């Protein structure tokens, strides 16, 4: 089980308190009527599914009940950092 640091609670808590909410920084289109089928497919279905550092959203469901973003390595499952909603996308160091 992973230990996850909630950026709001500032505590390392066990994974069962959290629910995974998919890839992060995918914004819902502001102009849905103008989107082509290809653009809808990109928004709804296409995911980076990165092998390596992956931006993702988590929900501290059984804690503060707030969403936050994380940068996690999908090979080691190690969290690089977690940060609050609205903060800029974490840069991946080369």
């Amino acid at each position, binding site marked *: 089980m992973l230990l996850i640091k909630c950026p709001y609670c500032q505590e390392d808590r066990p*994974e*069962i308190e959290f629910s995974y909410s998919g890839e992060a920084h995918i914004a819902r289109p502001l102009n849905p009527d103008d989107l082509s*089928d290809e653009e809808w*497919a990109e928004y*709804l279905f296409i*995911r980076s*599914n990165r092998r390596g550092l992956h931006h993702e959203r988590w929900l501290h469901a059984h804690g503060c009940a707030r969403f936050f973003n994380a940068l996690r390595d999908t090979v080691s*499952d190690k969290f690089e950092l977690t940060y609050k909603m609205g903060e800029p996308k974490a840069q991946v160091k080369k």
Partner: protein
Amino acid sequence: MKYSALSLLTNAFSGHKKWPLQWPDATPKKSYDVIIVGGGGHGLGAAYYLARKHGITNVAVIEKGWLGGGNTGRNTTIIRSNYLYDESARIYDHAVDLWDGLSQEINYNVMFSKRGVLMLAHSVHDVQSFQRHIHANRLNGVDNNWLSAEEAKAFCPPLNISKDARYPILGAALQQRAGTARHDSVAWGYARAAAALGVDIIQNCAVTGIKRGANGAVEGVETERGFIGAKKIGVSAAGNSSVLMEMAGLRFPLESYPLQALVSEPVKPVMPCVVMSNSVHAYISQSDKGELVIGAGTDQYVSYSQRGALHIIEETLASICEIFPLFKRMRMLRSWGGVVDVTPDRSPILGKTPVPGLFVNCGWGTGGFKATPGAADLLAHTIAKDQPHPINAPYNLERFTGGRLIDEAAAAAVAH
């Protein structure tokens, strides 16, 4: 050599020390007609069918690890075809048809055992949903029957059908033609049969790039052992499909999750069939060695780690102990994880890609083993004819743009 009772007897006299190698470890040539990336059952099978059914023998299978070391060797070997939608019934039943004669065809015992798969209904919703599945299956010529709780108990005596059970059993759907097979044999059998027809099998050779020419078409693959040319490339790489597609500049509707399984200490025969409980995420059967083979659910997050969290298998074992109280004191021997590539509609992507010469077989999610011969046959057909077979035509990549999904995710209400 052909395996037979006679060859077994002859080799018994020499203490089983003179069996020839099942297939040679090939050194890559400069180029091939077709390269298959991924040496699991699906990829090796595709190479075999390319050679046998389509006469294309200048083929290489390139595997980054060892044959069958990915999801082929990490699943719970369940084979069934009782899916809801017409497209699914056709593709999974095509696979079961091929499983039927596979051992004879490739002269290798894959130990396909039609011991029946029992899917338990624990709620009124389950009952209604399974009965709908049964009706849909029978319209499609797929066998599936409804059993009452008592009939299910008669078919599988270890079941706890008492009224006060934590997960009461209201009935079950039984596909009698379904069952299990020996997973390693599937990889080895296809490898041996393909190699006998001239296919090169190259292990420990990761693909690091896919080279495309000026017109966009594929020209070959970069590997750890140098460049290997090919005008046609079939990618059958399960959990790593996104990574390979990205090498060709494509983004796919896939996410990779860890899926775990475990086995108990071996015991005498006690489980006569496969039992699945989708609502509590428990899958169980007994191997011919006597181990209970148990499948759990996926972890919630994307991962390529080939291991999952302990609380996932704890939940599965807790459910198993409720449904089969007599297993409560059994000890578990080994657990492991595989990386499964899941599509948004939980149906595979099998066909051409926007890149000329690049073909893909991916997105089988948590249920790829059962499809092995079918997927292999259809991938080979698609590569050989440069167009999909009618069975896999609906499983195109364009369905995510056009909206014609094959939504087995909604049909099963769980990953499957």
